[in-house]
């Protein structure tokens, strides 16, 4: 395909969009690449926002996705602080926040997601309520914490972001309470054994986690009270909301893209509109291995989908088919996850011997291994990934027996 006089517009310059832009050049796209984002900051990695960048151990400067020179070198036009406000798929054009109209030959939606703000009385008007998605958000939290009287922080939501934020704020000397609506933290994403481990870990570190807490109101200024439906109330200088995201689909709706809690894409990241692709957190795709539609929020997924879309735009016919992986760091604990555990009906817990806690949780559907969560045990994570991929039958009894050395020969079904 002749691409020299063509224009590819990418909306969203984060993990997915930036990966796609650079991959387009590697795949040989010779035309224009226009990359827009409302965020004025040079595109950066988000994971450190709740971890080392929140504690201040690391500067976000060290976590930019690519240095500015490289955009210049690859001739990628970066339009930061610019929102794409309208998309006309029929005429293949977009309208920017400064009213300019730009035409495209290929369009990539990498619009990601934004924090979901639950319907809680007073949440819109409360002065010290924060979310955590952008670099500005992280800076605002750090700043507010420094200025606050007692450093009392309530975090609504015990998912990964909530728990990582709790650990980081604790490190900064905050007094942290996490309020989780379900009966355990990480309910949607891990087995009860993992939730228990993290609840105990946080308790040990002095972070107060309360479950079965449905927040219904926030009031008071500057000292706020966070009120739950059982009548309990918690004092907070800062409230941080981490209860999940809303996918940014406004532009996709304008283009009449097929959607199902995310933009539906095929194995090459194509949408139902010719010339429009979608990648990253905003998409739902069919995972061939699990034979199921999934929307995944991870760096791996965003980066890889960006590369797949680039190859497809340059005329190839790639198939996105990988096992998802993810990690989370809290205090000195490293959690690594591979696969998708949804639909499991049995878990096997493998504890390693030794001083530091080190164990893994293996999720099975009958005899098929679906996923592995490993705490301080990278070997289990790596081997788990292999076993899942190769559909290896694992001997569950031997797996659970930490008297047997952790090595393939001891774990595979004879």
């Amino acid at each position, binding site marked *: 395909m002749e691409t020299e006089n063509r224009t590819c517009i990418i909306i969203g310059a984060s993990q997915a969009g930036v990966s796609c832009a650079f991959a387009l050049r*590697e795949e040989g796209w010779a035309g224009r690449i226009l990359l827009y984002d409302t965020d004025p900051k040079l595109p950066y*990695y988000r*994971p*450190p926002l709740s*971890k*080392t960048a929140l504690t201040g151990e690391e500067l976000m400067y*060290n*976590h930019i996705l*690519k*240095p500015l*020179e*490289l955009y210049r*070198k690859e001739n990628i036009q970066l339009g930061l602080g610019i929102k794409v406000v309208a998309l006309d798929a029929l005429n293949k054009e977009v309208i920017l926040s400064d009213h300019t109209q730009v035409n495209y030959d290929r369009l990539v939606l990498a619009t990601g997601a934004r924090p979901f703000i639950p319907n809680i009385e007073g949440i819109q008007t409360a002065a010290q309520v924060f979310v955590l998605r952008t670099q500005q958000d992280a800076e605002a939290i750090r700043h507010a914490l420094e200025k606050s009287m007692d450093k009392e922080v309530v975090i609504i939501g015990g998912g990964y972001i909530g728990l990582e934020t709790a650990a980081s704020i604790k490190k900064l000397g905050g007094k942290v309470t996490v309020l989780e609506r379900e009966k355990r933290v990480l309910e949607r994403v891990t087995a009860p054994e993992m939730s228990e481990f993290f609840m105990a870990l946080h308790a040990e570190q002095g972070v107060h986690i309360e479950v079965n807490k449905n927040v219904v109101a926030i009031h008071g200024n500057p000292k706020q009270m966070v009120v739950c439906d059982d009548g309990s109330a918690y004092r907070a200088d800062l409230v941080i909301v981490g209860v999940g995201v809303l996918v940014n689909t406004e532009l996709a709706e304008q283009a009449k893209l097929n959607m199902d809690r995310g933009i539906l894409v095929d194995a090459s990241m194509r949408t139902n509109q010719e010339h429009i692709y979608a990648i990253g957190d905003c998409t739902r795709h069919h995972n061939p291995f699990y034979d199921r539609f999934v929307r995944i929020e991870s*760096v*791996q997924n965003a*980066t*890889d989908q960006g590369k797949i879309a680039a190859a497809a735009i340059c005329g190839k016919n790639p198939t996105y088919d*990988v*096992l998802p*992986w993810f*990690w989370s*760091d809290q205090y000195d604990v*490293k959690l*690594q996850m*591979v696969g998708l555990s949804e639909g499991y009906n049995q878990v096997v817990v493998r504890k390693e011997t030794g001083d530091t806690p080190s164990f893994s949780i293996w999720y099975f559907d009958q005899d098929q291994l679906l996923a592995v969560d490993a705490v*301080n*045990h*990278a*070997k289990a*994570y*790596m*081997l788990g*990934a*292999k076993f*899942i*991929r190769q559909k290896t039958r694992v001997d569950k009894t031997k797996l659970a027996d930490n008297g047997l050395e952790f090595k393939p020969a001891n774990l595979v079904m004879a």
Partner: protein
Amino acid sequence: MAKITFITRDNQTITVEGESGSVMALARQNGVKGIEGECGGVCSCATCHVHVQNGEFSRTGQQGTIEKDLLELNDHADETSRLCCQIRISDEIDGLVLRVAEKNSF
């Protein structure tokens, strides 16, 4: 200060200079192709895998357990393998040559 040379998967050579931080961060800042560093250098992803050239492995310092474990079961790893987010930049490693390893995906 150290000068480090990377050889990318398509056999291009790029030499860069750094003062501090990790070799992965240095590679990323200079856009060395193939060094993704997706986890940001916390030894969780193995997307910063390199092979230390010229038998100079011992100059790159100690390997932690997690790094060893991530590499042990990596199809493209051998005795020259390192995750370069775990290599600190110092005078010690001046002149090092690192080859970007093949991508490992699940």
